[in-house]
């Protein structure tokens, strides 16, 4: 039980990830599938960000040790950490995963946009956004040996 509690961020990531994948694979509605895909992608964002978090760490912006803010942080960190990590006693979270996931979010948004755009064209071409109905429409035409161009 304690392993679950100390790794609760990973539990959240796994739940989100599997939830997203389940939505993606269980529904035939194209818009819902895109939602599932977005949740799936977002879970990786959470994974990376929780990787970069250092307990007790603050945002990775250099603080002036003599400023009031710096003093407050040093006080909050406690004497032990000040002794361990130097005069400023401020621990920073690792900023790199955050930067990476910023890039991944942009990629995810682009994918979502392209996917939804294709869904719109599908609706115009087939009149439906249900995968089953689209496949049924295609099967009829393929059996007849015909090809339907999109409008």
């Amino acid at each position, binding site marked *: 039980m304690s392993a679950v509690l100390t790794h609760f961020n990973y539990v959240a990531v796994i739940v989100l990830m599997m939830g997203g*994948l389940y939505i*993606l694979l269980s529904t035939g509605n*194209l818009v819902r*599938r895109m939602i599932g*895909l977005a949740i*799936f*992608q977002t879970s*990786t964002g959470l*994974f*990376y960000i929780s*990787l970069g978090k250092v307990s007790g760490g603050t945002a990775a912006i250099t603080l002036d040790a003599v400023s009031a803010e710096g003093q407050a942080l040093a006080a909050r960190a406690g004497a032990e950490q000040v002794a361990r990590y130097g005069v400023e006693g401020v621990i920073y979270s690792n900023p*790199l*995963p955050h930067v*990476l996931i910023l*890039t*991944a979010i942009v*990629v995810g948004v*682009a*994918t979502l946009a*392209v*996917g939804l*755009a*294709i*869904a719109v*064209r*599908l609706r115009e*071409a*087939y009149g439906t956004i249900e*995968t089953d109905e*689209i*496949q049924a429409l*295609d099967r009829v035409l393929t059996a007849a*040996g015909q*090809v*339907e*161009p*999109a409008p």
Partner: protein
Amino acid sequence: MITFEAFYAAPPALTAHAPALLVVGPLIGACVAALSPNSRWAWMISVGSTIFAVWMALCLAGEVARQGVVNYYMGGFAPPLGIAFRIDALGVMMALLVSSVSAAAALYSGHALDAEVRSSKHTLFQAGFLLCVAGLLGLVSTGDAFNAFVFLEVSSIGTYALIAAGERRDRRALPAAFNYLIMGTIGATFYVIGVGFLYAATGTLNMADIAARVVTLGDSRMVQAGFAFIVVGLGLKAAMFPLHGWLPGAYAHAPSLMNIFLSATATKAALYLMVRFLFGVFEPGSDFAYHFMAWVLGPLAGAAAVICSIQAAFEKEFRRVLAFSSVAQVGYILLGLSIGTTAAASAGFLHLLAHALMKATLFMAVGGVALHFRGRTLDDFAGAGRDAPWTMAAFATGAASLIGIPLTAGFLSKWRLIEASLAAGQIWMVVVIAISSLLALAYAGRMLEAIFFRTAAPGAERAKEAPLGVLVPLWILAGFCVWFGIDASLPESIAIAGAQALMGGRP
């Protein structure tokens, strides 16, 4: 042996920045093409920037021949702070392949777009095509694991849109593109998760640094989980059996330009990245990587070579036959790589080059005829050999290479694969290659029989000869198929140099 120095000619200022310019050239070209006033301009920009990329790839080939490995730090920031491009002989091989195939496809696109894509979308189509090219070139030259993901997605997002552009002919391109988008994004996300595990275990994203630290970690669960995610993710992108479900639909309904480009480069680039991780990051000497290659990769590759060839033999639609054959041929390449020796890897890479060449020839021939002809099935192509003799003769050359008839590029690469598997004592691989070649004879034979020996049904639509603008690049490709079957010193020297760079002196 022909060396890379023979190609080397560029001012030093260009050569010094060739790794960046290789990617930036098509990227800027994409922006300009999107803003260009008409289809003609966009086409010229597309041809210009892909030829520029070929030139830069040749410059890099010269540099790699002189230095061994080219390291280029983006913005002058050395790793671990900055992103490094790291290009060795294998990267050069892929850069040359991607850039030259994209140049051939760009030349071909002048005629193909008019027939296959809405005229209002021509400029955007060329922009998307150049984005795709830039992404793939970046993918094969970067030395940073996360940067590779970004390039992978730049090329993939372009590909989704370009496949969907096939809707003008056939609305089934839309569901095919959507399906590919879902599968491709799952693959890319798996890759990101895997890289996240590796980052958590090693604290770096530079592939060379990851490799150095993975060795010290020993039997780490986290590294193995990362390995699994990366292999499955890239396997989806590379259409590795049994993750190839998206591929036949995407190939069959996309504009013919995308067939040529995708089959020759996109899946190969994902395969390249997987190979980089298999051999460059996770040492094949380590237990789990070795077991994976011997017990998972090898058997799956063998199954792909046989099962997908059978599927190809029973398909009715022309381009679906070729698509299933592509999955089978990826199986050959992986079969060579799974042996894990330098000789076998070089045989695999030789087959990669040969397959890129012959599939580009085959798809260009089919696409060239399809400009004025709406036939899709084998029956529709009955008698096409009489109506379009030049185009279909090139098709026959490509098909001969696909089967592996002597004096074609496909024969030599299969021969090398058989040699390598015999040397490694893997008799079952020889059997698989033989069975799969017989099946290739069956499906290629069905196509050739329909084209050359059957007569068109009365009243059926007849094929027409492809225009000169298509015939010229087509016959250049077909000529290479034959030339490399007679004198393979050029592709073989490239493949051997690539395999040696990858394996780093291991046997």
